[in-house]
């Protein structure tokens, strides 16, 4: 079990916690890439999903079906395909690839969340003289918020996890420890990278689960 001890020693070594190749810097790069991808995906996915949900449009179903197909798309392949285009080995191509994978859960949940708001509630709001936009803003969106938040959580956790692969196509982030460890045959570094990435993903999951719980109305007032 010396690998466990070696890994712990690697993690405790102060030299690994400073400079541009240190844990804090790579952690920030990792989070930066992830945040950019999720932010971009939210900008792209949420407006059409919410509007199609509001209109209860059938096109939304098509959009959901198409975005579900991406489940079968290997992230690894997409990362490398984008790196082979004119975008090259860059942070841009990594962010773009991750954005593609962040879109489906956001899109599906926002569309279904808004579409499935109780029609009685929507009609009551209309009956009270609310315009379409007002219904959307003060009735449908608040009621769909828990589902939208769930989609955001799924997509963010997935992106943080997948951003690890970025190191393989020249991007930065915590995956670099794993990549370097394999390249140098440095097992403790590989394992330490694995531990760091796993902890980060679990942390993001837990934090977002707490956030999600906060935006969820208590059960007895839910409609």
């Amino acid at each position, binding site marked *: 079990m010396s690998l466990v001890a070696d890994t712990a020693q690697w993690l405790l070594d102060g030299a690994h916690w400073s400079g541009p190749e240190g844990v804090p810097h790579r952690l920030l790069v990792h989070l930066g890439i992830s945040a950019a991808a999720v932010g971009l995906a939210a900008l792209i996915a949420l407006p059409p999903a919410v509007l199609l949900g509001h209109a209860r449009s059938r096109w939304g179903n098509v959009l959901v079906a198409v975005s579900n197909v991406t*489940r079968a798309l290997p992230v690894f392949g997409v990362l*490398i395909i984008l*790196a*082979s285009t004119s975008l*090259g080995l860059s942070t841009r191509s990594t962010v773009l690839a991750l954005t593609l994978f962040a879109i489906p859960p956001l899109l599906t949940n926002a569309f279904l969340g808004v579409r499935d708001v109780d029609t009685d509630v929507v009609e009551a709001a209309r009956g009270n003289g609310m315009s379409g936009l007002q219904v959307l803003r003060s009735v449908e969106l608040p009621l769909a918020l828990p589902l939208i938040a769930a989609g955001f959580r799924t997509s963010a956790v997935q992106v*943080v996890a997948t951003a690890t692969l970025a190191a393989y196509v*020249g991007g930065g982030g915590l995956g670099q420890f794993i990549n370097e460890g*394999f390249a140098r045959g440095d097992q403790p570094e590989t*394992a330490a990278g694995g531990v760091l990435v796993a902890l980060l993903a679990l942390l993001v999951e837990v934090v977002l689960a707490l956030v999600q719980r906060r935006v969820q109305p208590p059960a007895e007032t839910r409609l």
Partner: protein
Amino acid sequence: MQVLSSVVAHLDAPNPWISVDYVRQNADALRAATKEHVELVLLSVGFGLLLSVPLAVLVRGHRRLSSLLLGATGVIYTIPSLALFALLAPVTGLTLTTAVIGLTAYTLLILVRNVLTGLEGVSQEVLESARGMGMGRTRMLLRVELPLAMPTILAGVRVATVSNVALATVGVVVSHGGLGQIIFLGFRSNFYRAEILTGTALCLLLAAIAEVVFLGLERLTTPWARR
């Protein structure tokens, strides 16, 4: 990686995304990679089922144990695939076994959840009548409960299979990534686009074939749904 980016600069030769020549000349390598890919997926989903069904049968009915098992498989599911492979590699080496263990781990959440949901969905009346017919617990499980839960279980197997077709490519880090090896080789050979795209397209093809197979299986295992 730095070396690679400088090599890319002098790429003047044509580098098409689609090349029949490439496929023809590398048919053997493509066949071998596809075979490994299918092996990875079948073995991981197979082992996943062998673990999930007994585990789910054991914990069902116990609320605490069920949520504990779902929580544990959920934690595994959250661990990024690359990290999991990185943690397994020092122990089991750069082997097919490492890739299969990692991929199996990812099927557990989906499979356990669906087996549990499927078993819980069997109505009390059906169980009563089975008991009334004098069936023992094992016979009831095998002849009544599992068959009735089959659509839900299959739905889980379908999701697990399709996700693992995509995920298996990450096995590259332990040198057993099936078609991922092809994609990565193309990447390392000065961005050989035909190789990269062929590898990715074959993955999608495998996923599509899996979908069709599951549609057929769903019909076969639910004879009562047919008119």
